[in-house]
């Protein structure tokens, strides 16, 4: 099985292919520009937006500083409310716990609410190996699952597919879909509704992620639009929630901040259609058994990076994707990880101690738009630069030609005479090009990368030459 947070290729290679896909670029341009405008309006409506962002940042910072205490408190509250808490060091351990729980209830079918965390640990594939079918119930996730694809956006995972493609997919793969299913979105949603309803009413185990977990009360929060998460967390007898350890927040009151920041940043709504907040097991309502799996899987590795640590503050709103000029053109698949876009470019390498995604910190122009929209003020550009430094220092990714050139340049800069000599040699070598006065569109050999995406202006006389002539 492929590791869902291990990009199979370098970002430049993957981006190259993505950029050649016209349909993808049209879809992306439409989606990102539409959400950008709507988000700006939703945010402008709140005069205290900046104060909310600052509170959102401060709560997360404080949580991380004492993450151990908050997790122990969460464990205590959830247990007191009738839930069972499990701890998982890595993906394999989490998948084993979830698989074991499902098997102990003698069922081979579970319904799942959308969860990036279970995506990250490859839960569905791990369950399939045990003969358990996990049904994705979010419309976009269902589309992704039926087409054996991977998500390309945090909020709208199937945005790289158009309605005709989805209609064909449903006709072929969705049990019970009529052969003459039309391609308008409401008919497609209705087909999914009919099929999934049967599953919801039948399934005995539901699986969800968590947007927030309140240490003080043991309350889990899941925000959504469709109602499938409500179905998964309410109807089955057994509910299993898998959450990264960074999703804990200290107090109930902290929800007043995030339940304002998240919907406006994410879907650009004043409030998302449904938010579910449950505390352990309620004897009169909902599942009779509740399990909470606390997952590390690289989070403590990210926590150890003092600058990068703030990436763990992310509330998965996807605002940074929609404003990123790189994401807007390449889409999510080029990032090769469950976590795409600017936040993915820092989270993927941080979770894996730079073993994966070492080219991702370079997938940015450092324009800073991601930082401006981030509801919890993660300084993504700063972390990107910091990680670039780590990549070079720790040798996580090497461009041999580049490193040799930079080394040579550093030595030249230290010796003025050698620098002047090098400039004269350079001027001699480029003299024919200068006389032609044309832009250079293709450089030879190892320099080729420079001209792949841009032209080089015709060589100009050096400043030193100009100064000697003009003063």
């Amino acid at each position, binding site marked *: 099985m492929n590791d869902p947070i291990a990009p199979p290729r370098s970002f430049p290679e993957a981006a190259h292919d993505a950029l050649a896909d016209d349909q993808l670029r049209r879809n992306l341009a439409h989606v990102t520009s539409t959400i950008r405008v709507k988000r700006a309006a939703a945010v402008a409506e709140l005069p205290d937006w900046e104060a909310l962002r600052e509170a959102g940042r401060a709560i997360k910072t404080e949580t991380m500083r004492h993450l151990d205490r908050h997790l122990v408190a969460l464990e205590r509250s959830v247990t007191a409310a009738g839930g069972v808490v499990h701890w998982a060091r890595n993906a394999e351990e989490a998948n084993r716990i979830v698989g074991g729980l499902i098997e102990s209830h003698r069922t081979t079918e579970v319904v799942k609410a959308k969860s990036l965390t279970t995506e990250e640990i490859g839960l569905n594939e791990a369950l399939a190996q045990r003969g358990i079918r996990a049904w994705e119930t979010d419309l976009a996730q269902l589309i992704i699952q039926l087409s054996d694809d991977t998500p390309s956006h945090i909020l709208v995972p199937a945005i790289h597919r158009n309605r005709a493609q989805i209609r064909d997919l449903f006709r072929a793969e969705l049990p019970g879909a009529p052969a003459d299913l039309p391609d308008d979105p409401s008919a497609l949603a209705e087909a999914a509704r009919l099929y999934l309803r049967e599953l919801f009413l039948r399934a005995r185990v539901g699986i969800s992620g968590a947007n927030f977990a309140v240490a003080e009360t*043991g309350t889990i929060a899941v925000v959504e639009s469709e109602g499938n998460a409500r179905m998964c967390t309410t109807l089955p007898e057994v509910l299993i929630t898998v959450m990264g350890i960074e999703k804990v927040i200290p107090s109930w009151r902290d929800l007043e901040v995030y339940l304002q920041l998240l919907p406006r940043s994410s879907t650009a709504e004043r409030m998302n259609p449904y938010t579910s907040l449950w505390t352990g097991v309620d004897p009169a309502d909902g599942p009779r058994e509740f399990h909470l799996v606390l997952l590390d899987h690289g989070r403590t590795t990210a926590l150890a990076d003092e600058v990068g640590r703030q990436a763990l503050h992310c509330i998965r709103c996807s605002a940074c994707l929609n404003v990123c000029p790189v994401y807007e053109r390449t889409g999510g698949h080029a990032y090769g990880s469950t976590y795409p876009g600017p936040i993915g470019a820092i989270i993927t390498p941080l979770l894996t101690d730079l073993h994966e995604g070492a080219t991702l910190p370079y997938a940015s122009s450092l324009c800073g738009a991601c930082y401006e929209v981030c509801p919890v003020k993660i300084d993504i550009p700063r972390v990107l630069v910091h990680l670039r430094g780590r990549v070079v220092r720790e040798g996580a990714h090497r461009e041999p030609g580049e490193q040799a050139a930079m080394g040579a340049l550093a030595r030249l800069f230290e010796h003025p005479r050698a620098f002047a000599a090098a400039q004269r040699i350079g001027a001699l070598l480029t003299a024919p090009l200068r006389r032609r006065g044309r832009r250079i569109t293709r450089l030879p050999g190892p320099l080729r990368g420079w001209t792949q995406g841009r032209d080089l202006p015709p060589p100009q006389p050096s400043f030193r030459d100009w100064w000697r002539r003009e003063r």
Partner: protein
Amino acid sequence: MSDARTEILARIRGALGDVRDEAPRRIPRDYGRGGGLDQEALAGLLTDRVRDYAAEAERMSELDVGVAVRAGCLRLGIGRLLVAPGVPGAWWPAAAWEDETGAAAEEDERDVAIEEDGGAAEAEEDDGRPAAELDAVDGVLTGCALAIAETGTLVLDGRPPCGRRALTLVPDRHICVVRVEQIVERVPEAIAALAPRVAAGRVPVTFISGSSATSDIELERVEGVHGPRRLLVLIAG
């Protein structure tokens, strides 16, 4: 090998070697809390914001709720209505010609038949039937724990008169009555009001803002996927 819990907690402490000061830092909470609007303004704001979600909202006197519920059932095509426990008798669907107090309905062992153009709408109280049977019900009538005007949000807490969670999820139409004094302006007020209920009673809380929706296909909004596709909010008082 140590157990996962011990090891994760040890990893966290190891990762936080740079954190010296033990005392928690103060969280700046300089954002607004709401509370500046009177009840009339709140009712108006809630009405507008619910309508923004393409749901229906009506303002009325508490005495007219039963009649409005009945009209809502007819308009939304609700033949079989399930009512959450704790919903006052006066809110049960009532014909316009019944007395304004709706007292008759309350005493009528909560089983009211409505005659209209030959069609009948039946109302009965939720008896905790299995979810699969809820699927056969056309609509539900509930109250709420409170409502947030600014975001057009209904807050249910799983207790009378909100009903259990499945009740407002499986059937396709939901009529929710909000009393004007239950409306708060902003999210922080709602969170504060819910705090004791969650801490002491561990009530399951559901925020509902408009009807269920998806924009997963080409970002085109489709109303109604799994939750109720039609939501009618009656603001009474």
